[in-house]
């Protein structure tokens, strides 16, 4: 789907700004400068406004994301289920430091509670949510996403 096709599925009303930004992010992986221009024109808003919206929300990327994005919930409930160890495990397996966004291949981030606390620890890899993730399982899940 092109940006134009996505735009035409929505009326240019204010309440559709965030849904459109989400839809373009979902389709193309991120909100590029070109996307900002097109969305701004469609809604008759300034580009800076559209960019300010895109840059605010966790779900939306304003830069091309790394190939593999691993997010581990570090909120209090998952802390009691050993989330800190999972973060260390991913760091050592992928040989990266958490939060290092200079890496094009891998990004490890802490994320906020997704409300699946009874099934923690909760991990999200490239947008896919996994629950009850153990140290051994996280390596397996990452390998699956990397294709081996």
């Amino acid at each position, binding site marked *: 789907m092109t940006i134009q096709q996505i735009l035409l599925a929505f009326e240019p009303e*204010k*309440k*559709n*700004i*965030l*849904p459109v*930004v*989400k839809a373009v992010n979902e389709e193309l992986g991120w909100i590029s400068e070109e996307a900002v221009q097109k969305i701004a024109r469609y*809604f008759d*808003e300034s580009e800076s*406004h559209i960019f*300010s*919206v895109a840059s*605010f*929300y*966790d*779900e*939306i990327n304003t830069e091309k994301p790394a190939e593999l994005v691993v997010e581990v919930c*570090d*909120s*209090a*409930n998952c*802390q*009691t289920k050993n989330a*800190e160890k999972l973060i260390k495990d991913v760091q050592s397996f992928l040989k990266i430091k958490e939060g290092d966004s200079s890496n094009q291949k891998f990004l490890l981030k*802490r994320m*906020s*509670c*997704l*409300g*699946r*606390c*009874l099934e923690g620890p909760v991990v999200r890899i490239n947008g896919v*949510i996994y629950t009850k993730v153990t140290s051994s399982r996280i390596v397996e899940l990452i390998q699956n996403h990397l294709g081996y």
Partner: protein
Amino acid sequence: MKILTKYWKIGKSLDIKDYLNVGGYEALKKAIEKMKPAEVIEELKKSKLQGRGGGGFPVGLKWEFAAGKKEKQKYFICNLDESEPGNFKDRMLAENNPHQIIEGIIIGAYAIGANKAFVYLNGTFRIAGKKLEQAIEDCYKKNFLGKGILKSKFDLDLEVFYGAGAYICGEESALINSLEGKRGEPRSKPPYPSDAGFLGKPTVVNNAETLSSVSWIIENGGKEFSKIGNVDSPGTKLSSIDGAVKNPGLYEVTMDKNIEQLLQIAGGVKEGFELWFAQIGGSSGQVVPRYLLTEIPSYSERSVVSIGSGSVLAISKHENLKDLLLSWINFFQRESCGKCVPCREGTFRLKGILERLKNGEFDENDKQDLFKLIWTLDNTTFCPLGKFSVTALKDVIRYKLLKELR
């Protein structure tokens, strides 16, 4: 006494047929066919139902403010943006019995005179979203939504709006900004949403759990509801009890239980674990040491512990308190909207200090800065997130739970 989970079946969500079979939408029929909007509001006022997102504001009063506005265009919004760590009650309500929420929305919209309603849904709650969308479609087919509901002059359109990952959008004015296609930053109040909310029009925002109590109130009367449980904080409450307990889970309780009793409802403390403290109401919640487990969390002003969103997290001596302090501040620093300097900078600096505490580098300068930052975050931020970010830390200090912070 079950109001919220009464019809839940394990592994099966109630569709419209199931909901109608257990008497669903009888309250809506009663409200529209037999009651004037003002009478509906009177019942909500008599019920003393308090907002269950965490604020505990009287629902009847909120509806009354909006109903009294002469504006023709009004909006009604269900806040299902649940993001407080440790809480998933609203997600479960939407997945298991979406119609009970929707019935509350329609009755509320009728009471205030709104013809357009939204469910602002946490964007990661995909299953809940599908259930709500199907339920809404089924409501339109049955004339519970749309034009001339149940042959009255009341019209209402309802749609689901998906959030995009921002805890602060659970705050009603930030939610409204988000719905208007803006950054989810809170607004200055006054004006309150009931005066000027979505697109500047009178708007009511209520939590999904709050709305799930409305149909019972209309069917049985507000006075009956006000007698349930704690008379200063009546009705039932969903509480997600987790951590070092035998049976972590979501429980429907009345707000006359103390924390020890709540832990017992979840099977008591796990074998081989020693309870250190409990945190009530998520990461923004108060921390309660062992000797204060006799406190009763509720929305009453008499309660020393606010029940907030309702969760209980049992922390055992196994846990690393420095990691928990970091977990709390990481959350608020990440979720800070950035609009005001004290919160944007304060949470960031506090995070740095708590990292130094974890790494053993915490010195006297850090300690002084820590206390200054607590004051700043507690007193000068634009919205309550600043206060939330230091609530647990203050209690850790108050109850002398960490030797470095004495």
